[in-house]
Structure formats: structure tokens, C-alpha cells
């Protein structure tokens, strides 16, 4: 097993006629993901790499039974795209788009939540269940099927950690980039619970960074609810306060969000924190 996506995933690509949408639709299909449809208003009847294009998400869902959607539309249209997917009954919506206004995310998240669907992102690399399904922009080649669940706020840093896991013989059940914005969909608690309940996941790597206090809450949550071994890495120990470090959500404010506070919370909860990403496999093996 794995979480959220697998061989049953029937993927719709919103914004498939755009450069990124088209490119990654092909990559995902190449990996073996069932990419069943794309949307681009006014372009119904066209095909991208053999994938049928529809005018609306509703048409795509009716025709193809798509159950998951990945969004590549420009930031100004992302809110509408997320809501369109949820309104058409899509239950898992992954928004790759970077730079979406926060209040757009707040209102679309609320709508998606009311439709009992899940949102991942925005500003995220998506997710992968190796050898089963890839949804997003992750470089498939570095992943390997196995037992470690990966949750991360970052893109390339996730690849770095995954690469270390794979080269140490530790494959992944599912790896998820939750997104680097201050407000995004699924986060640590929900995903930790899914991994805890997934029989194929035997350990969890959590990659956090500065900004907010989700890591502190995750530490407490792991202590009380997660029995599988968890190892953590936190980026941004040398980041100056008040500066946005690339990700909109990676900023130390006057009320907190430092790496030191996060690391202290994990250590207090008895969860090992890696000093550098390459230590993660060792920390997980030691606990298993």
C-alpha cells in the first residue's frame, strides 16, 4: 500500500495545454500514472500526448472517471481551478502553482474542506508512491519503492533526503511535498496519521523548515499518536529573522518560527533530529 495515490489514481491535469502542464503530464504518464484527462477551457477535443482535453473539470470527470487532479494553471487562476475540481467531485487536489495569493488559498481550502476533499499545496512538488503513481513534478528516477514515508515542506531538499534514503537501500512508501506557502492543505498531523495507518510504511522522515509552529505541534502529536520511528530535519538554522527564505512561509517572525525552537520541541519529545540530511537514513535504521 501507500497513501493518497496508487494504481487506482485516475489523474486529471488542469492547465494541460500550458508549458509546465504538458511537460509534466507526459512525464507522469511515462512513469506509469494513469493520466486520464486534461482541461483547458475552449480546447475540448484536442489531445496532449494522447490525453483528451476537456473544457471543464465536470466534463472530464463525467467522461473519464478522474478522481485526482493536479493543477498547473497560473497563480491568478489557481483559486478558481481548485474550486472547480472540488465542485466536480474530485477528492484529491494537488496544486503545484507557486505565488497564489494567501486569501485565495484560505477561501478555496475552506470550499474544498466543505466538499470533504483533500488539498495538497499550493507551491508544492506534489507526491509519489514509487512504482505506482507520480502526481506532480518530482524527479521519478531517484525514488524507490519501500517502507519510509516522507513529508516535507520543500522540493529539492526532499529529493536530497530521498536520494540519501534510496542510496542507503531504504525505499519510500509515499513521499509528499506539502508546499512552502504559509497556508496550504494537508500537513504534518493528517499525513503522519495516514502513514501510521498504512501497513506498508515502517518509518517516517519529516522535513521541516523555519516559519510557523507546525513542527512544534507535530512533535507533540508524534509523541502521543505515532508508534512508527520518525526522524526529522529542519532547514533554516542560520536564517536571519524577518526575511523570507525563498518560500513564502519560510520566515522567522517576532513571535517565533525559529529552527532552534522546532529542534528543541522534537528533542523534548524524544524524536531524533538530523544535523545534516545525510543522517536521516541512519537515524531511522537505528530506531527500527
Amino acid at each position: 500500500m501507500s497513501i493518497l495515490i496508487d494504481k487506482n489514481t485516475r489523474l486529471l491535469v488542469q492547465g494541460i495545454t500550458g508549458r509546465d502542464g504538458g511537460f509534466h503530464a507526459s512525464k507522469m504518464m511515462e512513469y506509469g500514472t494513469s493520466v486520464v484527462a486534461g482541461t483547458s477551457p475552449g480546447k475540448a477535443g484536442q489531445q496532449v500526448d494522447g490525453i483528451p482535453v476537456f473544457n471543464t473539470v465536470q466534463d472530464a470527470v463525467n467522461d473519464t472517471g478522474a478522481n485526482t487532479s493536479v493543477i498547473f494553471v497560473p497563480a491568478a487562476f489557481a483559486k478558481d481551478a481548485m474550486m472547480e475540481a472540488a465542485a466536480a467531485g474530485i477528492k484529491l487536489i494537488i496544486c503545484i502553482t507557486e505565488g497564489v495569493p494567501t486569501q485565495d488559498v484560505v477561501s478555496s481550502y475552506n470550499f474544498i474542506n466543505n466538499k470533504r476533499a483533500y488539498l495538497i499545496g499550493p507551491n508544492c512538488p506534489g507526491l509519489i508512491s514509487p512504482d505506482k503513481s507520480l502526481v506532480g513534478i518530482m524527479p521519478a528516477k531517484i525514488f524507490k519503492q519501500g517502507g519510509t514515508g516522507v513529508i516535507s515542506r520543500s522540493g529539492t531538499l526532499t529529493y536530497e533526503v530521498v536520494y540519501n534514503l534510496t542510496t542507503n537501500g531504504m525505499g519510500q512508501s509515499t513521499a509528499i511535498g506539502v508546499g512552502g506557502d504559509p497556508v496550504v492543505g494537508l500537513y504534518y498531523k493528517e499525513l503522519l496519521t495516514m502513514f501510521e495507518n498504512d501497513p506498508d510504511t515502517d518509518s517516517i522522515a519529516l522535513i521541516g523548515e523555519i516559519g510557523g509552529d507546525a513542527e512544534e505541534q507535530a512533535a507533540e502529536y508524534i509523541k502521543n499518536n505515532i508508534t512508527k520511528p520518525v526522524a526529522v530535519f529542519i532547514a533554516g538554522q542560520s536564517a536571519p529573522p524577518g526575511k523570507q527564505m525563498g518560500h513564502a512561509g519560510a520566515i522567522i517572525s517576532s513571535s517565533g518560527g525559529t529552527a532552534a525552537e522546532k529542534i528543541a520541541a522534537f528533542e523534548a519529545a524524544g524524536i531524533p533530529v538530523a544535523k545534516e540530511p545525510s543522517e536521516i537514513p541512519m537515524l531511522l535504521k537505528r530506531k527500527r
Partner: protein
Amino acid sequence: MKIHEYQAKDIFVKYGIPINPGYLCHSVDDAIKAYEKIDHGLVVVKAQVLTGGRGKAGGVKLAKDTVGMRNHAANILGMDIKGYTVDRILLAKAEDIEAEYYVSYVIDRNTKSTLLMLSKEGGVDIEEVANATPEKIHKIVIDPTIGVPDFLARQAAFLLFDDIKQVRQAASILQKLYKLFVETDASLAEINPLILTPDEKVIAIDAKMTFDDNALYRQMKINDLFEPTEEERKEQKAKTKGFSYVQLDGDIGCMVNGAGLAMTTMDMIKLYGGNPANFLDIGGSSNPTKVIEAMKLLLSDKDVKVVLINIFGGITRCDDVANGLLAAFKQIDTNIPIVIRLTGTNEVEGRELLKGSKFHLAETMGDATRQAVELAK
């Protein structure tokens, strides 16, 4: 993005939120003219800078006559507050205060919503209140589909006031503040303090707003208020080239793809005893033009003694990255040692291409960092 108090108050006025009248002054002469216009003995002279803690720094003073006002204005203009030089002050009518309250709307990461925060402990540092007596701060999660209807505004206002006349005034302010919060794509709209005057008027005597950078494209009027520092100007310029850049004070320049990996590279440099000169995320691809631009940016910092390039080849394979780097460095003339660490898809091929070049090559992040720290010594 931050704006000044007087700018936030201008927005408040447009939305009908009552404030204490004031005038923006760039000089003592301006202040004297403004003082005549206010026609009131007691005034407050407030430094207008884009940072908090103005009061503690001595940038907010009360004056009861022209002499006092003139002295304070002269002292505050030119004052340094946390690295910002005060070049303008707000001269405002000092209201008599019966009670002070705290009110704000803020984007909350945890509830993924807008939060209305209220407290009877106004006029003080709200973070101190939050730490010492969190029970004194009320938090209301706003449902974006209904916003702040009358009942909710009333319910919230009753948390601060008992008298219905005061509640009505406060409720109206709460609704107007929410409207402006949403319509300007704010990430914070704060009144601290909101006051009750002896004649039972509820007014905002301070205003603080910050805005979502991601939304500035559709908030041109707000965007026009942006006053970048020299540092922010450099960061802004980098952004137009597709980079995320933050200058730091070390001597090891970093060029990395991805924000998380870029932060980790800085952290590793510190961990191994060095000092990063910057945070630089060059984003997805690493085509030669991008690398050349990034090198120009790094070398414009004269403190940089070594450059550490850390690239994870994902979709863009390492052999393509290596070719890009070779092409770029044909056009870059520098004696600064360059450490390159390439990993990911086709890393062996990538490293093979770089062999025999002038670069210092590394396989792991640890190795790359060690080399860079050593070379910077």
C-alpha cells in the same frame, strides 16, 4: 510588504474607520504648521518607520505645547530605530483615553483561515500578553463564505464592551476592518490600541498593516506604497531574474536550486565552521544565462571569497547542469575558487564532464561544505 502607520490610517479613513486626526510632517517647520491646524493642546509625535518597537525606542512622544512639540519633532526626525532613519513623523491629536483594546485580523497558518483577535489588554505589546496571559486574547475563526456578519461583529464587540452604544461602534469597526483586510489582500490589519474616549467614542489611534506579497500583482495601489531598503532593492532585482536572494554577512557565496536545499546549504556552512554570504535559490533549471546572472549577483558582494554551487539534478539531469555550468564559466572571469557539488539524476556523467576543469568537485554536501569552508580560511 509593510506600510507606515499614516498610510494604514489613510486606508482606514477610506473604509470609514474613525481615527484620531493627524498630519504627516517631514520637518520641524511642517510640524509647527500642522500643530496650528490641529487646534488642540495635547498632541502625539510619532516616528513613521517600517519597524515595530517605536515607542520603546523613544520614537513616540506626547507634547502639550509648541515648545515641547518642536523639541520632540526635532529629536525624533533623524533618529535611528532598528537601522531605519526616521525621515517623517505623524503629528496627531492626543485623545483622552478611558480604556484601551486590541483588535486585529491575521492570516493563521494553523486554522488555514483569517483569525479575528481581540483583547481588553490594548496599548501594550500583544505578544507579551499572548505569552504571559494567553486567556486574555480572544480568537475567532472567520468563515470566508460569510465573512463578518452583524451577529458575529456584535458577538466579538461584546467581548470588549458592555454598553450597547459602544458595542455598536466597535462592531461597525470590526466589519469595516474585515472588509479592508480582504479587499487589500492584507496578511495583518491591526488596531493597537482601539480606544474608548471619556465621551464614549470608539476610535483607532494606531494602525498597522502588512500585505501578502503574492497578491501585490492585483493590488497596484498598495504596491505603489512599497519603500524598499537598499537590501530589499537588491533582493527585488534578483527576483526579476527568477532568483530568491537574501544577503548575509559571511564570505561563502552559495548558489543552490530550491529554497529548502539553499537554506540547508547555509546551515551546513555554519555547522562546519564557516559563514554563508547569502541565501540564493536559482530555481528549477540551471541554464547558462541563469548561472552567469547568479554569479554576477554573488560576485557583487565583495566579501565573497569562495562560491559553493550545490545543485540537485532532478528533471534537469546532472549532465545537462554540468554542460550549463561549463558554458557559463567560459564567460565568467573570476579567480574566486568555485566548489561544485552535483547530485541526483545522471550525477556520475555530470561529474565526469566537470573533471579536469578548474572547479573543486564534491560528491556529498558534507564534502562540498568542508572544502568551501577550508578555501575561505
